[in-house]
């Protein structure tokens, strides 16, 4: 028979607080968080496209918000999220193919992801600045 009290007293699987902090674990969390940022960030893309389709006045309004310093900061954060998440995705594909599971390689991949994400975001930001 099903016993509600028994179900309630079942041990839960351990979560974040019981694990020692390691790089790959932190990177797994960051992968999820950047995915979450991008999820919300699609609103910025959709609003921008709809404004462009609605005419020059709407476009100017939205462009004005996006060109403000807070707008630029959010967009830069989203560009970083996209690049970081994309490299994180490549890392997952490497694992999917069965490579890179030993701790040393996994740590190296995580570090590469972190550094390459920031560097490439810088490259995109500089390129955007030159074009503007």
């Amino acid at each position, binding site marked *: 028979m099903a016993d509600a009290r028994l179900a309630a007293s079942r041990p839960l699987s351990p979560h974040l607080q019981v694990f020692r902090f390691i790089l790959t674990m932190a990177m797994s969390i960051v992968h999820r968080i950047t995915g979450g940022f991008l999820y919300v960030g699609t609103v910025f893309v959709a609003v921008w496209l*709809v404004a462009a389709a609605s005419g020059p006045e709407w476009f100017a309004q939205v462009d004005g918000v996006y060109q403000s310093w807070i707008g630029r900061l959010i967009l830069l954060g989203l560009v970083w999220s996209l690049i970081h998440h994309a490299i994180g*995705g490549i890392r997952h594909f490497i694992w999917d193919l069965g490579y890179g599971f030993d701790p040393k390689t996994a740590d190296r991949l995580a570090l590469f992801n972190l550094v390459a994400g920031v560097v490439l975001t810088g490259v995109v930001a500089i390129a955007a600045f030159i*074009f503007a």
Partner: protein
Amino acid sequence: MSKSFRFQTSLKHARGFGSGKSGTTHFWQQRVTGVAALLLSLVYVVLLVKLQGDDYAAVMATLGNPFVAVLMLAFLGVSVWHMKIGMQVIIEDYVNQPLLRVLTLMANSFFSALVGIASAVALIKITFGA
């Protein structure tokens, strides 16, 4: 007991129940949309950089180019599906209260569909108008 009986697994009992309905469908779709989004995001980032400093007419001309519109539609399409099933995993992991879980899963579908449709309508209007 016939010999062939040994080759039967309990798979037939799982078919049609729980995750037996779709199995690894979402896992695989996450990979396929991931690969597509990875390639298409390169186009998207280059486009974003190129559009910097452009005025309204130039932006419309670029987005109205059928090649750009097709790649942008593809990028937004796979991205929306990728994020929809990705957020579903997050909700299934963290939202345990049954009613709240159903409502957030539904909200996830609505949000993703709305973002996708809005972007698609805008892009199609721009490219057909150009």
